[in-house]
């Protein structure tokens, strides 16, 4: 298994508080890696470091986009990380509510489309290959709307969609940036069991199309059923890293979730 993402000794400090301490792990290419842990473990902080919303205090994050092509992410500005091939969704859905689903997906292809407008002026004047590029972009949008079963809602405002559809739209939008690595922040939150199953299906489809996935999740059902690898954080420290089965049986993980009470009882 080759790694798509290498996190090495990542540390994030906020003033006196160390939220993430010396965390190292690798996410495999073509795999789904889940990051789990009790609340306050530092999962979202880790995520924000990887996706460029925080600058880590120490450590390295390497994205292996292609054989021989690795990029260090820890010093890149937020939008450059997305341009490098890392896309993300958010815990509190951040769609462009006043724009339609289709418009949302076109905004995601902004950079590719901007390149075809000839510095903006050409397209305003009707020159350049913009129209063709836009048609292709709409096609890509259509593809992902179909994959997320949202084609019928393409022209509806994103803010008017029901919660489950909004979650899927956010994923579709992230996929329209053609990422190498897709980072999902609690994608199953608030979904009922049927929707969670559909989500797992969608993630498998995404995987099959060549994008690796890194996700934070609390829903153990989803995590255990689709992850290839599970990383466990507790109080900012990595306490386990392995296959779902191995992690589930790991006593340290159990202690972290259930508390230290068992020790007192045993003693």
């Amino acid at each position: 298994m080759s790694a798509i993402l290498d996190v090495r000794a990542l540390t994030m400090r906020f003033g006196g508080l160390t939220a993430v301490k010396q965390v190292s792990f690798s996410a495999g290419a073509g795999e789904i890696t889940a990051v789990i842990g009790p609340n306050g473990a530092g999962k979202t902080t880790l995520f924000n470091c990887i996706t460029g919303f925080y600058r880590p205090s120490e450590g390295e994050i390497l994205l292996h986009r292609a054989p021989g092509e690795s990029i260090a992410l820890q010093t890149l500005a937020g939008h450059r990380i997305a341009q490098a091939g890392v896309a993300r969704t958010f815990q509190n859905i951040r769609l462009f509510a006043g724009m339609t689903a289709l418009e949302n997906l076109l905004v995601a292809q902004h950079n590719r489309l901007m390149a075809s407008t000839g510095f903006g002026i050409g397209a305003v004047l009707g020159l350049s290959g913009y129209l063709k590029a836009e048609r292709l972009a709409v096609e890509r949008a259509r593809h992902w709307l179909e994959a997320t079963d949202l084609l019928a809602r393409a022209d509806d405002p994103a803010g008017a969609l029901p919660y489950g559809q909004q979650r899927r739209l956010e994923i579709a939008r992230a996929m329209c940036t053609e990422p190498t690595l897709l980072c999902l922040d609690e994608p199953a939150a608030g979904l009922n069991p049927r929707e969670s199953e559909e989500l797992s299906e969608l993630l498998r489809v995404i995987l099959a199309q060549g994008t690796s996935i890194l996700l934070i999740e609390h829903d153990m059902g989803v995590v255990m059923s689709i992850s290839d690898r599970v990383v466990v954080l507790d109080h900012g420290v990595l306490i386990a890293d392995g296959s779902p089965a191995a992690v589930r049986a790991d006593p340290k993980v159990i202690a972290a979730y259930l508390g230290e009470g068992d020790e007192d009882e045993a003693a």
Partner: protein
Amino acid sequence: MSLPAALKDAAIATAVAFGLFFMLVGLRTEAGPTGALVLRQRWGDVALLCAMVFVGRLIITLWHARRTAREPAATNRWEGTLRLLSRWFAPVLLGVAVALPWIPGIGRAELDLGILVLTYVMLGWGLNIVVGLAGLLDLGYVAFYAVGAYSYALLAQYFGLSFWVCLPLAGILAAFWGVLLGFPVLRLRGDYLAIVTLAFGEIIRVVIVNWASFTGGPNGISGIPRPSFFGLPFSMEGGPGTFAGTFGLEPSPSHRVIFLYYLIFALAMLTNWVTIRLRRQPLGRAWEALREDEIACRALGINVTTTKLSAFAIGAMFGGFAGAFFATRQAFISPESFTFIESAIILAIVVLGGLGSQIGVAVAAIVMIGGFELFRQFEEWRMLVFGAAMVVIMVVKPRGLVGTRTPTIALGEKRAISKDLVAEGHG
């Protein structure tokens, strides 16, 4: 609400009104015979105002009660008719604007008003890019208007360049200032952004007022060259080489006015056309996405900095064009034309228009500027009513006249998006 309760409510309002008015209206300070201040009593005015408050409050309370009790079916019918009308509204308005100088009964005064209104429409459309589309609260837009005006005036004065050469230069200079002023404020949000842009606008005005050697100071710059008809001057003498002579017409001052009218009309239409085109392109969509959620934009790889700066720059450019037009129309400019109130008026026009809508901004400009001019004979009351109108309009229609946003692209049919979903933008 029952009538006794409404009466009681109106009585309380009147009591408050009395408390507000009895000193400031009732006792007017004036210079007395010795030069010191004396008080003139005006209880009649106080009584009148209180009566107006009483009646007004009563009417509003009762009307509100009536409206909430009305059936929703009636309001829907009203909305349907409105939507039908609005399809025809824009083309009709455009037609009237194009034909205005030729409509019988339209004289010099009306054309001047038309020019004024179109200038504000253009300024509104320019600011709409920054505030309406990109969601950046700019309270200092008048600065770019000033840059455009002074650029033309100074370039003409020092280098003798013609209007047509100076027009693009004024736009470029204004755009440059747009970037310069936009750069430091990129991280600011909402009200803070508004205040800093306000401060910038004021700083520029004070500098213009005080740097007399360069800008003419409070006296301004006069003798700014008038525009020519693409090289043919509008001379009153007629003869070859002038506009009247070349087209075989009797020389008349109205030629220049009509030309100016169509010039500002063309400039405004340019602003409108560019905006509509850009909205359908990645840049315009990025602006609107920025207004909706800046963080999501960043996560999608959009360079938020350049996107914001482009909004500032392009918006400023059109302000600059408008400024150059203003200078050539008046032939005289002074810092008094570029106060904060102007920025506030233009912002009010954009906000009143609603949701970045082009037609909304146009209607808002017509209503506000046209209305303001029509009340010219009321002198000092004008601004008071104007301010009150701003408050009333905002309270009644906080999102503006146009309540929906139309998407720029659709697989099927483009359907209007309600204002409840569209973000206002926080800068």
